[in-house]
């Protein structure tokens, strides 16, 4: 046990994780493809949409041929999977561009939104959780807990519409839509402009993450405050603000961090709704479009991408938890 074996153990751990990631991605790919192949929605019909009567049977056959829909599903899947191994995710039917390009461009827009929302929910959730835990049972704690439960049960799109109405329409403090002022060209919008447009969507999206972090941190804080070493510190005369900062914060950070990283998947789900409300051209909006229009290549690409993203999020959560709460290091090892 111990020091000598550490590098080997780490390598084995890494290989294990890689293997798990690969099997996860394969399972997601097969599952998603099976779902889409079994879906009763006809992709050609979804593409034709309102032009139904102007597009005749011959033209529909041409469309199916362009997309390779004539081949049996298994053949389509193996061809697609083979291409994926070479890094080619195919061409999006809706956007007419390579799937990697679409995901790349959209994710670039989403990442700032998700990062900001993630930060807001993490910082806010953790601080307020500490506060609620420290003031357990007092009015502030009750208000915060009540607020957390309300947020947890509020649908994202509804919160988004509410914020939009209050801040953009009535008060006109924030823009109604988009990632930059209407009519500005890329590069013209300043960083402040972009932040201004990011604010409301990020606030909406952060709603998803605040409550779990707040409630868990509150619980952890209460537990730590009841522990022996805090009692010892109290006995030495340390009082509440210092007590929380020095003795509690680090110990309570473990669960908060793990939750925060594990929430990447929920964050992505929330971004689908938040981006829709604010016309924010990110990955979430592309996902809605791809799903409604039966864009199989794009939807599969997004599924794979998010699977990897969530996996990485969880792995980072593990690491962060261990770093923050050293005791678990031994327990896991």
């Amino acid at each position, binding site marked *: 046990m111990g020091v000598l074996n550490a590098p080997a153990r780490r390598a084995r751990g890494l290989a294990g994780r890689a293997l798990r990631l690969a099997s996860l991605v394969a399972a997601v790919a097969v599952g998603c493809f099976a779902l889409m192949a079994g879906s009763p929605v006809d992709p050609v019909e979804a593409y034709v949409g309102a*032009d*139904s009567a102007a597009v005749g049977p011959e033209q529909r056959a041409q469309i199916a041929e362009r*997309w390779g829909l004539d081949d049996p599903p298994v053949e389509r899947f193996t061809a697609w999977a083979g291409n994926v191994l070479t890094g080619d995710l195919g061409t999006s039917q809706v*956007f007419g561009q390579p799937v990697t390009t679409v995901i790349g461009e959209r994710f670039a827009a989403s990442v700032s939104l998700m990062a900001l929302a993630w930060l807001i929910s993490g910082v806010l959730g953790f601080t307020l959780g500490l506060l609620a835990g420290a003031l357990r049972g007092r009015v502030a704690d009750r208000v915060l807990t009540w607020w957390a439960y309300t947020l947890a049960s509020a649908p994202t799109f509804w919160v988004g519409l509410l914020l939009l109405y209050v801040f*953009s329409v009535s008060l*006109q403090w924030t823009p*109604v839509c988009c990632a930059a002022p209407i*009519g500005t060209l890329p590069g013209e919008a300043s960083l402040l402009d972009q932040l201004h447009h990011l604010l409301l969507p990020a606030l909406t999206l952060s709603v998803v993450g605040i409550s779990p972090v707040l409630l868990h941190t509150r619980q952890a804080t209460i537990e730590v405050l009841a522990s022996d070493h805090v009692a010892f510190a109290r006995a030495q005369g340390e009082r509440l603000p210092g007590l929380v900062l020095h003795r509690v914060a680090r110990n309570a950070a473990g669960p908060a961090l793990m939750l925060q990283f594990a929430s990447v998947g929920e964050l992505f789900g929330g971004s689908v709704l938040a981006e*829709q409300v604010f016309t924010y051209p990110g990955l979430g909006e592309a996902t809605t479009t791809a799903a409604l229009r039966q864009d199989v290549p794009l939807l599969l690409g997004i599924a794979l991408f998010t699977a990897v993203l969530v996996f990485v999020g969880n792995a980072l959560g593990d690491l962060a938890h261990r770093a923050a709460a050293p005791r678990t290091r031994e327990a896991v090892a």
Partner: protein
Amino acid sequence: MRRTTTRARLATLLTVVSACALAGCGAGGTTSAGDGPPSELRLAIGGESEEGFDPTLGWGRYGAPLFQSTLLTREPDLGVGLDLATAYEVSDDGLTWTVDLRRDASFTDGEPVTARDVAYTFNTAAEQGGLTDVTALERAVVVDDDTVELRLTEPRSTFVNRLISLGIVPEHAHDSGYAQDPVGSGPFALVDWQQGQQLVVERNEDYYGEKPAFERLVFVFTDEDASLAAARAGQVDVAAAPSTLATQEIAGMRVQAVTSLDNRGIAFPTVPEEGRRSPAGHPVGNDVTADLAVRRAVNLAVDREALVEGVLEGFGSPATGPVDGAPWHEPGSSIDDDDVDAATAELERAGWTDSDGDGVREKDGTTASFSLLYPADDSLRQGLALNVVDMVARAGIEIRPEGLGWDEIYQRMHTDAVLFGWGSHDPTEMYNLYHSSMAGTESFNPGYYANPAVDRHLDAAMAATDPDEADRHWRAAQLDDDGTGFTAGADAAWAWLVNLEHTYFVDDCLDLGPERIEPHGHGWPLTAGISRWRWEC
């Protein structure tokens, strides 16, 4: 009025700036202050073409193609006008269309528009699996620099719609990136397109035709709620809104209701249940709606005016057929509705009586009852369906409304009545809905309607080489001199209910020019007359 708007916007700007000073952000300059028309117009009317702006894949099939120009144009009254073409002629056999081109048109990269580009565009579109159906074309051939021959596989009068809607692309610049960065000879050129967000275009100063009044247009691709919010916040000049929301008021804007061919009606299965199946394997036939008397009675009993007032908030008109208001519409096919007595008489004559006194008629052991399917997520169709149920109950017919998904509706559309919506500038749609050969093909002629006389009129309309002659045949298919046709007074294959008006919030200062009848699809078709929009303040 413009001045007040500008002032209002300046005030807005000030509040934003002061709010931003607190919040620590910089508001972008939105409007240039000053008199006269603004140089930039902002529109939130949806209609983003995610696939890009390649006409050979279907871009520009309705509304304005903006970047490209077409051979012909559609006039506000749906007549045909000239654009790139200076004249066109159809051969007597209807197979060859010869088009003469103007010589002063050039693409935005400076190259002239030639017959080769036109032939290339048509040949490419015919082979592409996109949203423009040019499968009738056998080959487009260059005759000389300014003449093209379009050779068809069979006579087709409706091919004129491809000359109207297919934007001409430059052969030398039509590569894989074209859809994202189009080059054309239209009134506008693309400046920037941020997918899912906005499209910025500017006036093509070298355009050969009438130049638009606005230097720059910004199309914002917000959904309904955000579009309305943007209109309220004074950030857009035009916003499309569903008729249910068009009753509210927005300062500085008026509601403009535009007539459309966009309609809603009930398709009836017209054949009895005999164990038949469609090519896709779905059952066919309904013993109740196969009875002409039932179909006519439904047509007579519904109160279309009440539907317009109650469901459409007044933004619409009663429908007589699928093409009301088009030059090929037969006005004589309209009937007097809300006539329960006539409906009752029709049913009595055919032997439908209410012998057990439950309010629903029977005939030979069959109850006058059938399902009416509508897409569950469409509140407008739901409203129509539920109202129709009560209206026909007065005549002793029971309709069972069912909200379903489209996939399920497609499986059941040959056995149950369906609330469909259609409406196209192209009468091919009428052919597809009523010709017996289209029964069971996609969602065309879902009720398996077949009448040899109607087929003959539809075929003759397709084969006509002259637009007026084609229109005469289209009208005869609806109701001919012998009283035969697919409309309510004759075979009553459908019960058409209402035509919609598309509603827009438009800045009080903006004049949208002569009104154009829009096709199915609310939003982008408004751009069809965009070159003639003017600022009136």
